[in-house]
């Protein structure tokens, strides 16, 4: 294959001198020095742009993030708790064929999980049929018995979803976990796109990137579709825990983008099962709440009585059908890491289809045989606590010490329901601009799925990068960053 990039061998050597391929799938190269077709434009640009110019653009991007105040909060430090979200300059590119599979696969998965949620809070057919062991559902701390026999608007439980996908060495995508409660990160997807358009206009024109700007509009339309039936002009609000929450920037950003009010629990009041917000012009009825407050804290009368973030009486207003909450309460059952193992069976049971996206093989430690298997091979598996997120509470077997393994063995034996194990995954790697050269780093992908009348996914997502060399942990709390994600036409 005669590719123009090949004539510039010496430059290639310097720009990519730290770029080597290993067993992981490489997003950019199909072989040493041979870029995949979708990356050819970027590859050539990387070879032609002087390193100073790259640095200048990186700086322009950083300043743009700083000025827009795109920050997240790190807990546990008193001063300067707001940090800029680390960002890599080079886009992650996905072909339209790849995206088509992801889109179909996620639509299938979310549809099935939604049916499953409806089922466990009503007849429980799938539990009786033994598709999922009922003790996994009922022992989950996100199961809300208060939701039983309550029909949520349009039967939609999971309105906003962020599912984490990884790419396996054979190039296929697998779902690593679903976030069905209050997924965050979409503001980074949107702002990082806006910044990239300013920094790489020429590349955008050449590549043919599908737009994602309509996310906020789509979210608003989705929320509107779920409004109580007798409210044709619904008042929609975004409920935030407040300025100290790590995702407060995102809450303020989305509220502004959608043109809806950003409220805290203390702004709302319930009277006769109707929710109002307190304005200077009097009380105004609220019809749909996009809530970014966890189940536990949303109503001190129904859930945790010590919550100061919630609204007393909100749950009863919800059950009376006078207000819609998105997402519904009790959806955390379906993203429990132990339940994850049963999602393929859930898809088969409810839709009668084979899963389109792979799952990662998962051992559930509450099952004696599987537990035995895991305990005898702790050095080969990644062990995760089902209730943790953000990369906390994890044992990465191959990189662990004997002490850590003993510690986890004791923890698993003490509370088997709380642990699962998965084989160590070689996440795919994508090129990143690091210290003047291009180096590969592990990435995952979190697309955002909206479910109102129908499932809608904006073509793109948040690509998270483990910026530390060799690291597999992409969480922002653990040194991860983000990349713009381009889905091509």
């Amino acid at each position, binding site marked *: 294959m005669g590719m123009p990039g090949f004539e510039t061998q010496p430059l290639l050597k310097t720009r990519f001198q730290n770029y080597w391929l290993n067993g992981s799938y490489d997003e950019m190269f199909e072989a040493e020095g041979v870029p995949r077709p979708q990356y050819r434009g970027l590859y050539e640009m990387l070879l032609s742009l002087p390193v100073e110019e790259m640095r200048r653009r990186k700086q322009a991007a950083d300043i743009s993030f700083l000025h827009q*105040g795109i920050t997240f909060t790190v807990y546990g430090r008193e001063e300067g708790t707001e940090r800029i979200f680390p960002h890599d300059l080079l886009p992650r590119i996905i072909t339209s064929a790849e995206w088509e599979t992801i889109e179909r696969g996620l639509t299938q998965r979310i549809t099935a999980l939604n049916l499953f949620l409806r089922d466990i809070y009503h007849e429980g057919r799938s539990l009786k049929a033994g598709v999922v062991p009922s003790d996994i559902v009922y022992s989950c701390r996100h199961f809300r018995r208060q939701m039983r026999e309550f029909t949520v608007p349009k039967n939609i439980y999971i309105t906003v979803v962020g599912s984490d996908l990884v790419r396996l060495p054979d190039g296929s995508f697998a779902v690593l976990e679903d976030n069905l409660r209050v997924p965050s990160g979409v503001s980074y997807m949107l702002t990082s796109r806006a910044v990239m358009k300013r920094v790489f206009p020429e590349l955008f024109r050449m590549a043919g990137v599908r737009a994602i700007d309509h996310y906020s509009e789509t979210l608003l339309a989705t929320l509107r579709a779920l409004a109580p039936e007798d409210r044709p002009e619904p008042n929609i609000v975004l409920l935030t825990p*407040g*300025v100290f929450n790590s995702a407060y920037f995102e809450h*303020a950003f989305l*509220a*502004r983008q959608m043109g809806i*009010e*950003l*409220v*805290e629990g*203390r*702004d709302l*009041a319930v*009277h006769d099962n109707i929710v*109002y*917000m*307190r*304005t*200077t*012009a*009097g*009380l105004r009825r609220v019809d749909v709440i996009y809530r970014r407050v966890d189940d536990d804290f949303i109503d001190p009368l129904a859930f945790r009585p010590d919550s100061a973030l919630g609204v007393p009486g909100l749950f009863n207003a919800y059950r009376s059908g006078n207000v819609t909450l998105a997402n519904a309460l009790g959806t955390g059952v379906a993203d429990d890491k132990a339940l994850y193992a049963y999602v393929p069976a859930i898809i088969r049971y409810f839709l009668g289809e084979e899963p389109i996206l792979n799952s990662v093989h998962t051992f559930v430690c509450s099952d004696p045989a599987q537990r035995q298997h895991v305990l005898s091979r702790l050095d080969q598996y990644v062990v995760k606590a089902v209730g943790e997120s953000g990369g906390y509470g994890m044992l990465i077997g191959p990189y662990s010490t004997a002490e850590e393994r003993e510690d986890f063995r004791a923890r698993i034996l003490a509370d088997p329901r709380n642990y699962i194990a998965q084989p160590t995954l070689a996440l795919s790697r994508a090129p990143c601009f690091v210290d003047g050269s291009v180096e590969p780093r592990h990435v995952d992908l979190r697309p955002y799925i909206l479910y109102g009348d129908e499932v809608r996914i904006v073509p793109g997502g948040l690509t998270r990068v483990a910026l530390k060399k060799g690291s597999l942990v992409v969480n922002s709390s653990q040194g991860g960053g983000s990349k713009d994600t381009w889905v091509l036409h």
Partner: protein
Amino acid sequence: MLSRVADNLYWMSRYLERAEHTARIAGVHLNLMLEYEPASQDRRWWRVLAALGNLDPVEGDVFAAAQSFALDQIVAAIAAGRENARQVREQISSEMWEQLNRLYHESRRMGTPEFWASQPHDLLLSVTESAHLFQGVTDSTMIHGEGWQFIQMGRFMERVHATARLIDLHFEEFFRPENEAMNASEHMEWIGLLRSCTAFEAYCKVYTADLRPERVAEFLLLNPEFPHSVRFAVDQLRKSLGAVHESAARKPDRLDKLAGRLTAALSYTPLEEIMSNLHEFSLNIRRLCGNIHAGIYQVYIMYPIEAALES
């Protein structure tokens, strides 16, 4: 507009006005005391403490108590102002936030007892300048809508209170109805009062440098054109109240009447009558202001749900 947002904007502004006022009074009296013998200072600092709103009895060194009270009040008011702004960051302009944030960090750096003991004027100057800057930035970068009106209300409500109290305490100490000539040190005290309200130069433009207590009272209480006079602040307060009534489409009769009474007291009370009982006059102004504050909260911010549902 959400009631909580209105509440945050109102207090952000009140706290900044309080920080500025405290800094100015502390600065003026630190200057004045230099020309007096140390023994006579206790009364002065008693008065400063009272003017700043301290009602607790003080034991021991009054000067030290007043210093630490003023310092604490400045630092705490700035922090509280910023905290209020932080809660509504997306409602104010980024220029406002940056200015306020800068002031906050300065006040944390210079607002320590050690720094204060050696260089109090650095902090005082920085606070008064930054407060003026913040006001300018606010007026020129924020929409003059409902939110801005609540900022105005906070500022002028605080100003009326603080100025009326300051004048009251000063007259109680230094005013003698018989037309005796003032001595040099009394003269300095009257200049100090004017300076505490940034009013010395403005007074001279209106009345020349001939200081007479009645004129000082007239200027600080009744002048409709000077921004730190009680009359001016009340007019602004009333204007903002009217604008909010309109934008919130409310007809709060009680608030209107209270504001009207306040204006009437300042417009139609003859100066001689004010001078015959200035303490009572000042108290009445402050009482009416307190009622207006409570009225704003009843109508716009903390109203009971049941009442709001009936109307």
